[in-house]
C-alpha cells in the first residue's frame, strides 16, 4: 500500500469507468432502422409506414421500390430490417380478405432482431385492427366483430424501464472483481518474484497470519471501491438501493472472501507476474461474459448454467440487482450467500494447501 500512485489508480480508474460506461451500456432498443419497400403506393401502405415511424421504435432509413435495394441496405448495416409491402396490397386485401407482408430481419444481433420483429408484428396487428374498424364504419365492409382479448402490461421495480438501474450494479461488481482477484494475485506474486516471500517464510510468522495480512488490505480496498461505486451510482444515476445497506455489505464481504481466495489460489500457481496476469485475465474475462452482467444467464443451456453457478460474480450480481432494485432481504438471498461462502471456503482452503507445498 506504500505505492500511492497505484492505490490512486486502483480507485480512480474504476470510478471513472463507472461514471462513463453505463452510458455506453444502453440496450433499450429504440433506434431500430427499417427500410421499407413500397410496391403498392396506396393509402393503406402510407398509413402503415406512418404508424411504424410514429411508434418511436423505428426510424426509416430507406424507402425504395426494389427489394434487392432494401436487402443491400441491410447488408451494409444501414437498416436492421426490411419490410416489403407487395404490389396491389390494398386492392387484394379487400378482394381476397387476406394479404401478406414480408419482413426480413438482420438476425446477427439477436436481441435487436427479437425485439424489432416483435414490435413490428405488434404494430402490424394494431394497424390491421385500425383498418378493420375504419372500413367497417365507412361501410366498405360488413360483418360481425370477433371478440378481442387485450393485454394490459405493467412493469414493476423499474417502471420507466431505465436501463441504468440494471447495468450500474453489474458494472460495479465487475470492477470490484477485477480489483480483488487480480490485485491479490499480482501482489503476492510480486513478493515471490522479488524473493521477499522466502524471507517471510523463514521468519517465525505463521503462514495463515501472513496470508490474512496480505488479504486484509485488499478487502478494505474492495469495500472502499464498492462504497464509492454506490456513491457514484447515486450521484450520477440517482440509484438508491431499495433494500438495506447492511445486506449489501454482508454480501460484499462474503463475495470478497471468495474472490480474494481466487486471487490467492492463482498466486500460488504462478511464478511470475506475467503468469499471474494471464491467469487472472483468463478468469476475469470469462466471468465478465458469463456471469449475467451483460448477457442473460437464463437463456443458456443447462450445462452452462451449472458452470455459471460456480462463478462467484454471478451470485453477487444477482444479489446486487435484487437488493438494489427490488429491496430483497437476507431471507431472499440465502441461496446466493451460501453458494458464495462455499466457493470461498473451497478456494481459500485449496490456496492454503497449495501454498504450503510450494513455498
Amino acid at each position, binding site marked *: 500500500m506504500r505505492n500511492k500512485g*497505484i492505490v490512486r489508480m486502483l480507485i480512480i480508474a474504476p470510478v471513472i469507468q463507472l461514471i462513463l460506461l453505463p452510458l455506453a451500456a444502453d440496450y433499450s432498443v429504440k433506434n431500430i432502422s427499417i427500410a421499407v419497400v413500397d410496391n403498392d403506393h396506396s393509402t393503406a401502405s402510407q398509413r402503415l409506414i406512418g404508424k411504424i415511424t410514429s411508434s418511436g421504435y423505428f426510424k426509416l432509413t430507406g424507402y425504395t421500390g426494389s427489394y434487392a435495394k432494401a436487402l443491400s441496405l441491410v447488408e451494409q448495416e444501414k437498416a436492421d430490417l426490411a419490410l416489403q409491402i407487395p404490389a396491389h396490397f390494398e386492392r387484394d386485401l379487400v378482394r381476397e380478405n387476406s394479404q401478406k407482408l414480408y419482413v426480413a430481419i438482420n*438476425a446477427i444481433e439477436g436481441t435487436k432482431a427479437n425485439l424489432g420483429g*416483435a414490435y413490428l408484428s405488434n404494430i402490424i396487428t394494431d394497424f390491421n385492427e385500425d383498418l378493420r374498424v375504419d372500413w367497417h364504419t365507412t361501410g366498405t365492409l360488413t360483418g360481425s366483430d*370477433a371478440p378481442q382479448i387485450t393485454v394490459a402490461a405493467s412493469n414493476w421495480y423499474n417502471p420507466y424501464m431505465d436501463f441504468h438501474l440494471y447495468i450500474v450494479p453489474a458494472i460495479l461488481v465487475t470492477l470490484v472483481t477485477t480489483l480483488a482477484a*487480480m490485485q491479490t494475485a499480482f501482489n503476492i506474486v510480486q513478493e515471490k518474484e522479488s524473493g521477499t516471500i522466502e524471507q517471510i517464510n523463514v521468519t517465525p510468522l505463521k503462514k495463515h497470519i501472513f496470508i490474512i495480512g496480505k488479504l486484509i488490505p485488499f478487502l478494505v480496498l474492495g469495500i472502499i471501491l464498492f462504497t464509492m461505486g454506490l456513491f457514484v451510482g447515486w450521484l450520477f444515476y440517482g440509484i438508491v438501493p431499495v433494500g438495506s445497506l447492511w445486506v449489501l455489505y454482508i454480501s460484499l464481504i462474503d463475495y470478497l472472501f471468495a474472490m480474494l481466495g481466487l486471487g490467492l489460489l492463482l498466486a500460488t500457481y504462478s511464478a511470475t507476474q506475467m503468469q499471474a496476469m494471464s491467469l487472472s485475465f483468463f478468469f476475469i474475462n470469462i466471468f465478465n461474459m458469463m456471469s449475467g452482467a451483460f448477457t442473460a444467464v437464463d437463456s443458456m443451456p443447462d450445462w452452462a448454467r451449472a458452470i455459471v453457478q460456480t462463478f462467484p460474480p454471478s451470485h453477487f450480481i444477482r444479489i446486487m440487482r435484487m437488493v438494489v432494485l427490488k429491496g430483497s432481504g437476507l431471507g431472499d438471498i440465502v441461496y446466493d450467500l451460501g453458494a458464495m461462502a462455499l466457493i470461498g471456503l473451497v478456494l481459500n482452503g485449496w490456496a492454503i494447501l497449495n501454498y504450503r507445498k510450494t513455498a
Partner: protein
Amino acid sequence: MRQLITFIRKEFLHVFRDRKTLLMLFGLPIAQIVLFGFALSNEIKNSRIAITDYSKDAVTEQLISKIASSNYFDIQRTVQSATQLEAAFKKGDIRMAVIFPANFANDLVHTGKATIQVIADASDPNLATTITNYITRLVNDFNTQTALTAGKPLQILPEMQFLYNPELRGAPNFVPGVMALVLMLVCTMMTSVAIVKEKELGTMEILLVSPFKPIYIIISKLTPNLLISVVNLFIILILSSVFLDLHVKGSILLLTFDSILFILTSLSIGLLLSINAKTQQGAMMGSMMGMMLPTMLLTGFLFPIENMPLPLQVLANLVPSRWYFIIVKKVMLKGLGIAAVWKETLILTGMCLFLFTISLRRFKIRL
C-alpha cells in the same frame, strides 16, 4: 540483419520458455469460443412465469395451454395473492406474472372484450420488454385464430424471415466480438508487460547502450506476439468452423490481412503503454483495469453503438476493435468483399501507422 534475427530468436525462446503463460494465451481463445459459442444465446426462452387464473374457464384454459406449449415460458406455479407475488419477485423466482381476472370468458362473450393483466419484473428492462412482447404476440395469435374461425375479414399476416442467423444463435455475434476482444487485449497486455519487465529488471539499459538499434528492439519484441496472435486467429477460425458451424464466407486473405492490421494496431498500443509505465503492475493495470471494460463495451458487440450518447460514440470510434468487429462481421459472416470494408480497413491502417509512429518517437526520446 543477422543481429535482428538472433534477437527475434531470443525473444521467441523467452516466450516459449514460459509454458504456463503460453498455455493461457492459447487456452483463452479456445475456452472462450467454445464456452461462449455454445452458452451465449440471444434468444430469450424458458422464462419463469407465474399464472393466476381467477376465472378458470374454457378460454383461459386454452390460453394457458397455448402459453405452456410455447418454449418461451416455463410456468412455475400459480400464485394466489398479491403478497405471494411480491415475495416470488423478490426471491427472483419468477420474471413475470400473468393474471386472468374473474369472469374472463363471460366478459369476452358479452362485452366483446377481456383484459389479461401482465406484470413483468422490469429490473431487467429488456427481458421484461421481450417477454411482454411474446405474451402479446401469443394473445394476438389467439385473437387472429378466433377471428378466422368467426370469418372475420381483412387479415394481414406478417411473414418474418431472419437473415444470416435464422436460429437467433448468439455465436454469430459473439465470435467476432470475442475475436476482437481477445486479440486486442492479449496483444496489448503481452507487449506492454514484456517490455516493462525488461525495464524493471534493468536489462533495458543494457540493450539501449548496446549498438543494437532501438527499432530492432521493438521489432524483436513484437514479432513473437504477432505470430502468437496470428496462430490464435486461425485457432479461433478453425474452432468456430468446426464446432459452431460458422465458416468464413468471404475471402480468407482479406480477413487475415485486416486481422494482421488490427493485431499490429493493438501491439502498438501495448508499446505505447509500456513507454509510459514504470512497473509491470502499472503496465498491467493500464492494459487490464483501464482497457478491458471499455473495449468490451465500446466494441459494439454487447451494446449497439448507435444507442450511446454522442460523446461516447465519438470515443467508440477511437477504439480499434470497433472497426475490426465490423470488418469481421462483414467479411466472415456476410461474405462481403473489400468494396464493403475499405473504409474500415483504411481507418485501421491510419490508426496503426499513427500509433506505431508515436510510440517509435517516444521510444527514441527515452534513449
